C-alpha cells in the first residue's frame, strides 16, 4: 500500500481538537507508518500541497478562512471536519446571536478590562471577520465528520486508521459519538 499524505489545518477553533489529536499518544507511530504528515499548524506554514486526507479544525469565520477552506477542498481527496466547531460552529458560532460590530467593540474597546483605552486592530494583515460564522459543510463538501468538543482521541484515531486503511469510518454508534 502506498503511503498517504495527511494534513491537519486549524481555522476558527481553539486548537483543542489538535490537542486531542496529540492525545492519540504513541498511536501516532501507527499513523506515521501509513502516512506522511505534510502540513500541520504545529509544524510549519507552507501552502497546502495535494494531499489524501485533511483534518480541518474550526469553523469558517473570516475571508482568510474561506479562501483557505476552498483551497483545502481543491487539494484534498478526503476532507474531514474535526470537532464541533467545524461540524456545527459550536462556541465559535455563538457570536452569530449578535452583530459583528457589537462583538468586536466589546472585545477590543468597551470591555472593562480595556480600561477605556482599547483600539480596534486596523492592520491590513489582520483577517476580516465575516458577519456570520458558518460550519465547513456550508461552503464545501465535507466527506467525514468527527464531532466533539474536543473530539475523543480514540474516535480521531479510529477515523484516521479507517481512512488510512481505505475503509469508511462509521460513527453512528453511541460509544464513538460525542458532543460537548
Amino acid at each position, binding site marked *: 500500500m502506498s503511503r498517504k499524505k495527511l494534513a491537519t489545518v486549524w481555522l476558527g477553533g481553539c486548537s483543542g481538537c489538535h490537542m486531542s489529536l496529540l492525545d492519540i499518544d504513541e498511536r501516532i507511530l501507527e499513523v506515521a507508518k501509513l502516512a506522511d504528515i505534510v502540513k500541520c499548524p504545529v509544524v510549519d506554514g507552507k501552502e497546502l500541497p495535494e494531499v489524501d486526507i485533511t483534518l480541518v479544525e474550526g469553523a469558517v469565520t473570516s475571508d482568510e478562512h474561506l479562501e483557505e477552506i476552498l483551497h483545502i477542498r481543491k487539494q484534498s481527496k478526503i476532507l474531514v*471536519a474535526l470537532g*464541533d466547531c467545524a*461540524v*456545527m*460552529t*459550536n*462556541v465559535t*458560532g*455563538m457570536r*452569530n*446571536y449578535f452583530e459583528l460590530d457589537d462583538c468586536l467593540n466589546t472585545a477590543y474597546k468597551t470591555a472593562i478590562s480595556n480600561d477605556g483605552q482599547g483600539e480596534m486592530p486596523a492592520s491590513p494583515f489582520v483577517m476580516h471577520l465575516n458577519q456570520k460564522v458558518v*460550519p465547513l*459543510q*456550508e461552503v464545501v463538501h*465535507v466527506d467525514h*465528520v468527527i*464531532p466533539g*468538543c474536543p473530539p475523543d482521541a480514540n474516535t480521531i484515531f479510529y477515523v484516521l486508521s479507517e481512512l488510512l486503511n481505505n475503509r469508511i469510518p462509521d*460513527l*453512528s*454508534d*453511541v460509544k464513538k*459519538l*460525542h*458532543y*460537548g
Partner: protein
Amino acid sequence: MTTITIQVNGKQLATEPDKTILEVCRANDIEILTMCHLKGVMDVGACRLCLVEIEGINKLLSACTTKVAANMVIRTDTERIKKYQRITTELFFAERNHVCSVCVANGKCELQQLGYKVGMDHIRYPFLYPKCELDSSHAWYVIDHNRCIMCTRCVRVCNEVEGAHNWDVMNRGTQVRVISDFNSPWGESVTCTSCGKCVHACPTGAIWPKAIVQGQLEKKPGIINELVEKRKMKL
C-alpha cells in the same frame, strides 16, 4: 380483566386495553425514543420522536398519545421512522443554542443522549440563532430559553403535580416560549412555590439550580412519578 393481543415488530404481545402504545412497548422492553414524555404527567405528543407505524393508517402516530386496540399491528423500527427521528433531533439542535460544550447539563442531558442514540454526527439544517432570554431572577433557579426544546414537561409537572401552574406557553413557531405567570420574571412569580419539580422534569440545561457548576448537574426526572405513585397510596 380483558386482555387484547397486539403485534409489535412482528412479536405478539398480550396487554390490557386502555394503555398507550408507549406504555405497552416500554413494559415489554421495546425501545421508543421520547423527549416530551415524563412518567407521572399527562402525555401531549409534542416532540414527535415516538412516532410509530400502524398497519392500515397512512400517517405516523405518536405512541405516547395513541391507545392500543385489539389486533393492532405496530412497527417501531422501520427506516422511515429512523429517518424522521434523525430529522426531529437535528431540528431540535438547529432551533436554538444547544452548544453542549458550554452547557450546564453537558454529559447529563437527554437531548445530547438522543443525538447519540439516533446517530447524529452533524446537523443538515441551518441554525436559526434566535434571540432568547436567560432569566436568573429566581433566588435558586435559572431558566435559559436558549436550551429549551419546548417539551413542556415543566409546564405539566407544575400544573399537574405541584398544582401551582407557574409555567405556561406563549406564542407560536420560532417565537414560542415557556413563560412564568403572565410573562413576568420568574423571581417575581406569585404562583411559583420554588418546589424544584420543573428543574428535575427539564430534560436539558434549560432549567437548573444556581448552586450547580458546569458538568455537575444531576437531574432526577424519576422522582416525579415516584411522588405521583406515593400520593395514590392509601395509608
